[in-house]
């Protein structure tokens, strides 16, 4: 039991942060309230620093959980992207209300101020993501997933006072609840089929079942329902419909959070669930599950890319682009442990950064106090805001996966994993899809840098607070600089195989993933 608690220390740091931030958010004096984002960021950094100490080599090797190697890399990635997400929102929450208080037009009323609350929910959601990584049984997994998504429903609702935000929250909540019910029902069927909720035990039982007669249909149906339910978090194919409306409705900084944290949690959950059903006993995934993943991957990529072509609103376009990236993630998941999982974590890091960078640019600009709506608003951005224009170009170039930028290396890792596990057709489809995506990403690159400013884009000016712009430019710089340190990043994001199964898996993929990684 102690061993379980040992791995929860980083999340504990975050929860302490939650409490502190909640209190600070309600303090009467303006300076302290302005410090709240920095405090939140401090706690996230603290949690990130805690990871290497908690997940030492010895601790990881002894742990009995299903994928012990998953916790450390995912945690680090979550913290780094979390820091960027917080950095982007400094000064944006309650900006007008705080300004009114500062100018004395309004009195501070703890009920109306939600600067503290936003960060509370953000830290809770981040904690939820980290808990999913160290989950070793269905209950923990269920709770962690709910902990990830419930705060995000609230963040969407309170991010903007406009009707559209509330509509987005309503859709997000109800569809989220439905998918939660679905994957819970899947869990129940899994429990009914295997009799245990411990993932490691479930793996033994399922491998035993597979050995002598084949996994029972109940388990397979349960797994499928679970995957489809969790697919909602990934915005995977059949469950992706909510994404466009919710991303457009929510405020820009909330959309950035939605684009990363639930998706990461979903991907981790997929990895954990699928590891129980195959791979480690030398066998591939059961055929129906494999086909399900294949269908989800192809549909998600294609629908995401294709729909983005038609969009005029920037946020809706980036929503569909993030759907397509979930499709690419699924390739990594299908590729299986070793190469596949490390590629997924790396891609989560790369995609997380690039997506946050793109949204940071949108966060740093506004038109008459309101957010940027259509893509045409960005026309000729170069003249008035060269920094933001170049940052947007680099971020979208990286999302597209153009060579020298970090995005390419993430996609390359995914492609290599896909091919190494024999899914070359999937990689080809992904290749064609990224070619299709070049169309709308190049609009994001071409419009700001090259076309002439239209009368709509004349009225765009910078948000009063400089931090979002710094975040955008910082992330863009990272996109260009980080490939140089790619070897280091890849060691950090490598998911080593559990020691006892290493040799078994080695034979499966004819030995190309030994324990030490490649």
């Amino acid at each position, binding site marked *: 039991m102690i061993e379980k608690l040992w791995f929860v220390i980083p999340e504990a740091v975050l929860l302490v942060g939650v409490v502190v931030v909640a209190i600070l958010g309600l303090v009467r004096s303006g300076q302290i309230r302005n410090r709240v984002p920095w405090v939140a960021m401090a706690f996230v950094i603290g949690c990130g620093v805690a990871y290497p100490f908690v997940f030492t080599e010895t601790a990881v090797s002894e742990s009995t959980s299903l994928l012990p190697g998953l916790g450390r890399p995912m945690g680090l990635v979550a913290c780094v992207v979390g820091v960027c997400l917080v950095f982007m929102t400094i000064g944006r929450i309650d900006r007008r209300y705080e300004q009114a208080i500062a100018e004395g037009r309004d009195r501070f009323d703890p009920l109306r101020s939600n600067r503290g609350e936003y960060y509370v929910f953000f830290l809770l959601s981040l904690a939820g993501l980290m808990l999913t990584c160290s989950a070793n049984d269905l209950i923990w997994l269920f709770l962690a997933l709910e902990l990830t998504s419930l705060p995000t429903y609230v963040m969407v609702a309170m991010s903007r006072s406009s009707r559209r935000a509330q509509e987005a929250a309503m859709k997000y909540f109800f569809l989220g609840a439905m998918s939660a019910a679905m994957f819970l029902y899947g869990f129940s069927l899994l429990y009914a089929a295997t009799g245990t909720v411990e993932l490691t035990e479930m793996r033994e039982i399922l491998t035993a079942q597979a050995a002598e007669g084949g996994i029972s249909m109940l388990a397979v149906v349960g797994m499928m329902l679970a995957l489809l339910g969790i697919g909602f978090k990934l915005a995977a194919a059949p469950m992706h419909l909510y994404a466009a409306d919710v991303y457009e409705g929510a405020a820009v900084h909330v959309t950035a959070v939605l684009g990363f944290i639930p998706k990461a949690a979903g991907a981790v959950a997929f990895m954990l669930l699928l590891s129980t059903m195959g791979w480690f006993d030398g066998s591939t995934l059961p055929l129906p599950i494999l086909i399900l993943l294949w269908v989800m991957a192809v549909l998600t990529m294609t629908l995401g890319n294709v729909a983005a072509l038609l969009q005029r609103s920037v946020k809706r376009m980036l929503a569909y682009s993030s759907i397509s990236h979930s499709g690419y993630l699924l390739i990594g998941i299908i590729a299986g442990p070793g190469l596949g999982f490390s590629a997924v974590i790396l891609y989560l890091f790369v995609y997380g950064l690039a997506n946050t960078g793109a949204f940071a640019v949108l966060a740093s600009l506004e038109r008459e106090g309101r957010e940027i709506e259509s893509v045409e608003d960005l026309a000729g951005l170069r003249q008035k805001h060269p920094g933001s224009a170049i940052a947007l170009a680099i971020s979208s170039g990286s999302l597209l996966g153009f*060579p020298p930028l970090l995005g390419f290396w993430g996609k390359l890792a995914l492609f290599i994993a896909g091919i190494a596990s024999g899914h070359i057709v999937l990689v*080809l489809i992904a290749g064609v899809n990224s070619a299709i995506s070049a169309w709308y990403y190049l609009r994001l690159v071409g419009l700001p*840098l*090259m076309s002439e400013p239209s009368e709509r884009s004349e009225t765009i000016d910078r948000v009063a607070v400089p931090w979002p712009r710094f975040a955008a430019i910082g992330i863009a710089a990272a996109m260009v600089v980080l490939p140089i340190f790619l*070897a280091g990043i890849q060691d950090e994001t490598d998911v080593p195989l559990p020691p006892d199964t290493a040799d078994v898996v080695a034979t499966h993929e*004819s030995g190309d993933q030994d324990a030490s990684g490649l």
Partner: protein
Amino acid sequence: MMSWLLILLPLAGVLAIIVSPARMAKMLALLTSLVVFGVSIAAAVGFDGWGKGTWGLEGAFNWLSRYGIEIQVGADSVSLILVLLTTLLLPLAVLGSFTSVRDRLREYYGWLLGLEAAMIGVFLARDLIFFYVCFEFTLVPMFFLIAIYGSTNRARASMKFLIYTFTGSLITLAAFLWLAWSASQAADGQWTFSIAALTHHATTSLAGSEQAWLLLALLIGFGVKVPIFPVHTWLPLAHTEAPTAGSVILAGVLLKLGTYGLYRFMLPMCPEAVVAWAPVIAILAIIGILYAALICWVQTDVKKLVAYSSVSHLGFCILGLFALNPMGLEGAILYMVNHGLSTGALFFLIGMMYERFHTRDMREVGGLAGRMPVWAFFMVFFVLASVGLPGLNGFVSEFLCLIATFSAGDMGAYPGVLGPWYAAIAALGMIFAAMYLLIMVGKMVFGPERLPAGSHDDGTLPRDLGAREITVLVPLAVLCIVLGVQPWLVIDGTSAAVADTLAVYQPIFEQLTQQTGASVTNALVGGTP
């Protein structure tokens, strides 16, 4: 060491340009490109691989041990020649665009030098991933050059150019990765992307069908770059919209990436598939020659005419490559250099005319011999170089490619698969080449003088070519004559490298001859389609 210098110097130039004020950009760009040219000349002089097929300028930087990706660089005589072509064309392109580009100077010259770094990287790459990264990165500067500095519908042209080539090369990337994976299977899990190792693996342990799939993927990727017939439609659009320097580099070097890719990857890596598929590719090339020549004939936009002529001319280069004998390959390599020089010069000339009259329509402007005699002389000279007048460089390479294709049936040790009929039909292209290029000369240079309405002389440019413009053209002219009269500079230099590439085809032909019984050597017209 020299190769790192060659790649990093242009990037240093880019940084210097970004930092320095806009008016310094021109001089800095010229200085950097000249320095790079000097370094490449020093490398060429110091290179001891001429005629010996060995690899010089080696260098490796272990980067991603996880996938065995290390940035390996090295050059053999073929890639060094193409590097020399690049470093020669760049300073001329920079010099040629002093007056045509007046705003956003820093970006313009920055992108040009970035393009140079990427192109040199492609030719010096000995590692698949480094090759692919540079190959893709050449698209970005070209995209920006066309999209910012192009003419009327540049947005569509740049978008089509980038996405067309990007799609093709993604499929090639998938093929590369699959090849690397199958190599890692053979080497029990040890990943490597070095071209030498993968070529060895490909030739030794790839089955015929696998080689065919690899060939198809490579053909799509590189076929788009060399515009082979069905996938060539982006080239005229990109050329008409690109600025002068952009067109020169696009025609001069970027098209050669495709043929270099075919030479470096397709020929050595999938010999059986190449032998099986050479007739099909040759037929595509021939269609490209005649089809593009016919289209050139009816063009009114002079840049589109020269663009289609590049499609037609590179058809000969492809024929030379797939004749699979030393003469053909050496002819093809010489063709790459010659086409770069003569078509590059033609685009310079058209650019100079465009700067003065701001139109490319041959119906509006013409008969400039009286008004611009020096320009007319260079125009006729370079048209003759590309038509293939003996004594100039075009002829030698075209002749070698055609005679190699013609006698591919019985070249002693290298019996190829093409035959006399391929060469005979392709040779018709020589007549069409004369027709469409002389029509262009007839309209643009000779005949009564026609000037576009309101083409005022804004005084910035002299009526005829200025000193700067002549210094751009003279080196190209001199090289055309030198290569026309003394082609051994390129031919002997690459003979050993070509022999190594073709060495892998010997066993296949021995095996082929036993199977077909009749000795391939004397079935003179064996390759009749």
